[in-house]
């Protein structure tokens, strides 16, 4: 049993519209896996089902071999499933470090404490600070997120997810909205992530995808079109037709 995350025959429809059509999918331990597909292929819906924001119509999801289909969002996070959002979903008015610390505190299970000061939880703060250090955000720790440039906010988004020490990390377009000059910074950060985390990335920036991923799955109209190593995908005629052909000339 080597799958960090496994999905069996996952279906979801909104009325007559099928946005997930019997998806079978497997994320290996320590994987660097990309999920690509044209707009409206159902990528974000897929992620939302994995994280528990959306309930699938049918099918099964396993995290580290355990069935999580019926679990809520919080329970999945507890079992090591972290995510980032396509559009920044951060605490804009709070300092950068609090963004990360809130996530670390949830994982450490101290977030219910009502009497001891947050400030006295050195473990949480140190760990958050270390994370920021790794991502090169240390000097911005006390600034509010709203004051950071967008590129850095994307990094905070990743830092918050890492604060959960996930076994599986779902990155929803980490470079979306970032000027191409800064996207290399995102790639650097992604490349430096601990090897034991299984990572599934959704991305439109093909440059980034082909440099980062060791395996690629192509989604089109809610169904898996192809899956394989980057080279295979690049060669795949059908993929080129529906997707790469239009973009990756």
């Amino acid at each position, binding site marked *: 049993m080597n799958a960090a995350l496994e999905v069996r025959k996952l279906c979801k429809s909104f009325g007559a519209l099928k946005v997930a059509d019997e998806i079978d999918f497997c994320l290996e331990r320590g994987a660097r896996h990309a999920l690509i597909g044209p707009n409206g292929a159902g990528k974000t819906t897929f992620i939302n089902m994995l994280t528990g924001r959306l309930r699938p119509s049918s099918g099964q999801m396993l995290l580290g071999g355990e069935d999580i289909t019926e679990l809520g969002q919080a329970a999945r996070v507890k079992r090591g499933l972290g995510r980032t959002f396509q559009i920044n979903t951060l*605490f804009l008015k*709070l*300092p950068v*470090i*609090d963004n990360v610390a*809130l996530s670390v505190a949830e994982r450490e299970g101290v*977030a219910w*404490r009502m009497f001891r*000061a947050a400030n*006295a939880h050195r473990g949480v703060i140190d760990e958050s600070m270390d994370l920021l250090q790794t991502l090169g955000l240390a000097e911005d720790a006390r600034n509010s997120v709203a004051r950071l440039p967008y590129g850095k906010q994307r990094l905070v988004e990743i830092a918050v997810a890492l604060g959960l020490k996930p076994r599986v990390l779902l990155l929803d377009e980490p470079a979306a909205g970032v000027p191409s000059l800064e996207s290399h910074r995102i790639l650097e950060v992604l490349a430096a992530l601990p090897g034991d985390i299984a990572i599934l990335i959704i991305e439109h920036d093909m440059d980034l995808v082909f440099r980062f991923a060791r395996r690629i799955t192509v989604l089109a109209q809610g169904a898996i079109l192809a899956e394989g190593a980057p080279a295979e995908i690049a060669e795949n005629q059908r993929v080129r037709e529906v997707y790469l052909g239009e973009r990756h000339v």
Partner: protein
Amino acid sequence: MTHSGGYVADPRFRAIEWLPWLLALLCFFVAPSYLPLGSYVLTMIIFALSLDLVVGYAGIITLGHSAYFGAGAYIAGIFAARVSTEPLTGLAISTVGAGLLGLLTGVVILRTRGLALLMLTLAITSLCLEFANKATGWTGGADGLGGFAIQPILGLFKFDLFGKTAYLYCLVFLFASWWLVRRMVYSPFGASLTGIRENDVRMNAVGAPVYMRLVVSYTISAALAGLAGALLTQTTQYVGLKVLGFELSGELLVMLILGGIGRIYGAFVGPLVYLLAQDYLAKQFPEYWYFGIGMILVLVVMFVRGGILGIVDAGIAKWRGASA
């Protein structure tokens, strides 16, 4: 000075935080004839603190907090009229009772947001009002509940005509409530409430049990509101239906915003300024004081977002900027 809590905020007391307590004690000696009003202000500060916890920190907008204030007030009244006039027991039972009501209603309504939540809170307090109005056997209905004389506190301190005991009684419980709220605001729990207010999607995504946490904060806040209500009953030895009216919730919300929300001391400054202004205006212009209060509200919204403490902060920042 905003007391927004969080992981980098320093939770130690600043010197200025002792000022309200000094002033409160000073008042006791300097202005003894204002003690009945003073007790009322202290009670409303407790109530405002409880509201600040849910509105200012957890971001739950409510017009129904009088349900819990009123529940506390009526439980204290019924307890005194039927069981015992011992004040501390009554206070404890009222606080727990209001907390339970907060838990029960919170579990039901906190799954919703926005206008629906606002209306649900409003409907709940209106429902409680109707209930108290109809259960005349217990509550006295529209005539109110009175005719009990609260025993001396611990058998030692009699509630006197000048309101000295009542004032100190309220002050002690305000101090305790303030201490509790302040601790909570600076705790990880408080930080997570702020997180929920700022972005509940993200809080869900980091695995926080958002709904449970809202329910817990709502319950604690309801218990505090109940405490305030019970204090009002015991110090005035009478309960009327107005303690359950949504007008009271609205007024309280106004006081809190006037002081500044989500900063602990806004709950001190708001009721103090509002009630003093009301006391003064209501005497000078009994028919038209509403106009003055309304004017103040409109001006505050138009020119000073963040309430009175917001102005103070802005002033200090400006002054520091100028001197630096």
